[in-house]
C-alpha cells in the first residue's frame, strides 16, 4: 500500500512539473506552429537570476518572483529577437533561429557568469520531508503538486473566461481567420511567449529546487521533457500537453521502479524509443488539436 502511495506521489509531482513544462512549449506552438528551441533557456534565465540575487537580504519569495519575471522577459525577448524577424519565412528557418538563440543564451551565460555550477538560494521547506499516509516524502514533491494544480486551474480559467484567452484559443485554431476578425497578432503572440516564460519560470523554481545549482546547460533536460510530452500528447492541444506530461512522468517513474540497475542508465533511451513508437501509432499525438490552420 505504501509503495502504491509513494508511486502516486512520485508520478503526480513529476507529472505536474512535466505538464507545466509541456504547456509552456505548446502554448507557443499552438498559435505559431513553431517550436521554441530556446525554451530551456527560460529555465536557465530564472536560475541565474536566483543566483545573482542570492546574496541580497530579500525574502526568498521576492527573489523567486524576480526569477519568474526574468523568465517572462527572456520569453518576450525570444519573440522579438528570434521569432518576429523570420516568422513569415520557412518553418526550418525559425527552428534554426531559435536553436541559435538558445546557443547564444547558453554561451552568453558561460561567457558572462561561469561555465561551472553556481548554487542558488532555496528556502528551508525544499529540503524538509513530510509524512503523508504513512509515506515519507520530500515536501517539495507536495509543493510541486500544489503549484501545478493551482497553475493549471488558473491557466484553464484564463483561457476560457478572459477575452485574451479566448482570442489566443481562436488564434491557435485558425490564425488568419482570427486576425481577420480583429485579433491583434503581435499582442497574442507576445502574450503567448510571456505565459510560456511564466510557466517556465515557475517550473524552474521547482526543478532547480531538486538540483540546488544552475549551469548553462540546465535547460536541456526541461526542453527534452517538454518536447517529448508535447509530441506524445499532441502538438496542437493544450489538454494534450498536460496529458502527455503526466503520461511521460508515469512512464519514467514506472521504469525507475521496474528496470534493473544496469539498464536504468539507459532509461532515457527507453523513454525516447517509446515516444517514437507512440508516434508511429498516432503521428498527430494522443489528443488531436483543432484542425490545422495556416500559420501567420
Amino acid at each position, binding site marked *: 500500500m505504501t509503495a502504491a502511495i509513494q508511486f502516486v506521489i512520485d508520478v503526480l509531482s513529476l507529472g505536474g512539473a512535466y505538464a507545466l513544462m509541456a504547456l509552456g512549449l505548446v502554448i507557443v506552438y499552438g498559435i505559431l506552429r513553431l517550436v521554441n528551441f530556446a525554451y530551456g533557456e527560460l529555465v536557465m534565465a530564472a536560475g541565474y537570476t536566483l543566483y545573482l540575487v542570492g546574496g541580497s537580504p530579500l525574502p526568498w519569495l521576492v527573489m523567486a518572483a524576480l526569477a519568474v519575471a526574468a523568465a517572462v522577459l527572456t520569453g518576450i525577448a525570444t519573440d522579438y529577437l*528570434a521569432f518576429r*524577424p523570420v516568422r513569415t519565412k520557412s518553418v526550418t528557418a525559425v527552428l534554426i533561429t531559435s536553436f541559435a538563440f538558445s546557443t547564444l543564451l547558453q*554561451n552568453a551565460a558561460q561567457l558572462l557568469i561561469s561555465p561551472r555550477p553556481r548554487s542558488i538560494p532555496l528556502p528551508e521547506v525544499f529540503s524538509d520531508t513530510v509524512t503523508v499516509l504513512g509515506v515519507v516524502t520530500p515536501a517539495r514533491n507536495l509543493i510541486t503538486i500544489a503549484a501545478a494544480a493551482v497553475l493549471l486551474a488558473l491557466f484553464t480559467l484564463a483561457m476560457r473566461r478572459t477575452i485574451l484567452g479566448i482570442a489566443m484559443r481562436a488564434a491557435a485554431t485558425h490564425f488568419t481567420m482570427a486576425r481577420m476578425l480583429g485579433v491583434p497578432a503581435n499582442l497574442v503572440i507576445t502574450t503567448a511567449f510571456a505565459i510560456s516564460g511564466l510557466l517556465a519560470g515557475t517550473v524552474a523554481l521547482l526543478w532547480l529546487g531538486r538540483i540546488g545549482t544552475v549551469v548553462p546547460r540546465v535547460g536541456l533536460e526541461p526542453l527534452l521533457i517538454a518536447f517529448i510530452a508535447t509530441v506524445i500528447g499532441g502538438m496542437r492541444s493544450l489538454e494534450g500537453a498536460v496529458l502527455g506530461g503526466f503520461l511521460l512522468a508515469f512512464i519514467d517513474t514506472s521504469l525507475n521502479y521496474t528496470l534493473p540497475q544496469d539498464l536504468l542508465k539507459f532509461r532515457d533511451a527507453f523513454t525516447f524509443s517509446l515516444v517514437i513508437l507512440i508516434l508511429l501509432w498516432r503521428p498527430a499525438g494522443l489528443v488531436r488539436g483543432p484542425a490545422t490552420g495556416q500559420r501567420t
Partner: protein
Amino acid sequence: MDARNLLTLLVLVGSILLLALAAELLEVRLFVRIVTNLFIMLVLVLGLQVFMGNAGILSFAHVGFMGVGAYTTAVLTIPVRMKGMALPDLYPLVAGLELSPFMGILAGGLVAALVAAVVAYPLMRLSDAAAVITLFALLVVLHTIMLHWSAVTNGPRTLFGLPRATGLGLAAAAAVLAVPLALLFKESRVGLLLRSSRDDEVAAAALGARVPFLRWQAFVLAAFMAGIGGALWAHFITSFSPKAFYLKESFVILAMLVIGGPGTVTGAVAGTYIVTLAFESLRALEAWLNRAQIFAEQVVGLTEVVLALAMIGVLVLRPGGLVATREVGTWLLRRRSKKGDAP
C-alpha cells in the same frame, strides 16, 4: 549531367584541390590540421545537405550518426594489444579484430547507414515540427547509448588508441568524392522528387511521389556520409568521448550549412569554408585573450555567441543562406550568356 552541373563540380572540386595543394606546399602544421579538419567537416556538411537540403527537414540526428561511424571504426581498428587497455570489456567476437583504418572508415559509414535505415524507416512519415523533434529525440537516444554502452564506447570516458590514419590526402579525397555524390543525388530522379515534396508535400504526394520512401533514401545516404565523416574524424583526432557528438557539434555543422545555404551543394561548400575561417579566427582570438589574461576569468563561448548571431543574421536577411538556389555553375553560365547577349 549537363554543362551547369559539370561546371559546378569542376569549380567545387577545384577549390578543394587548390586548398589541399596550398596546405601541402605551405607545410605549416597548424594550417594543415585546419584544412584536414575542414575537409572532414565538408563531408559531414554535404551529408547533412543531402537530407536537409532536399527533404527540407532539419535533422539533429546527423551528428549521432557521425558518432556511430567514429565508434564503429574505433572498435574495429584499435590495435589488439591496445584493446585490453582502451576497451577492457569488449565482446570477444570483435576484441581480436584489427582491420586497416581504411576498412574501418568504410565500415563506419556502412554501420551508420544500416542503423539509419532501420531506425528512420518509420520516422520519415512525419513532417515539419514533429519530424524535427523526433530526430532530436533520436540524437538523444544515440547519445545516451554512446554514453552508457561501456563495453563498446568506454562510457563517458575518453576512448583512445586509434591509429592516426586520416591525413590531408585522405580527407581531401573523401571531400572530393562527397561533392559529386551530393550533386548527383540532388539532380537524380529521387533528388528531384524529394525537392518537389520539400516545396509542396501534398502536391508531390498527389502526383505519385512516395514521400516517406524518398526521404528514407536521402536519410540513409546522409547517415552514410555522416558515418564516413565521423570515422575520418576519429582517425584524425585519435581519442574522443561521446561529448564530441552532441549539441555543440550539431550547432557548428548546422551553422555551416545554414549560413552557406542548405538548398545547394555550392552553399554547403561555401558555408563550410566561411564558418571554418570564422571559427578558427575566433578560437585564436579566444586563446589569445586567455593567454594575455585581459579578463579575470577564462573566456569561453565567445566563438559560439558570434556564430549564433551570424546565423540569426543570415536567416533574417537571406533566409535561403548565402547561396540559396543557384549552384555556382549555373550562376557562371548565366553571367557569361548575359554578357554574350549584350551588343
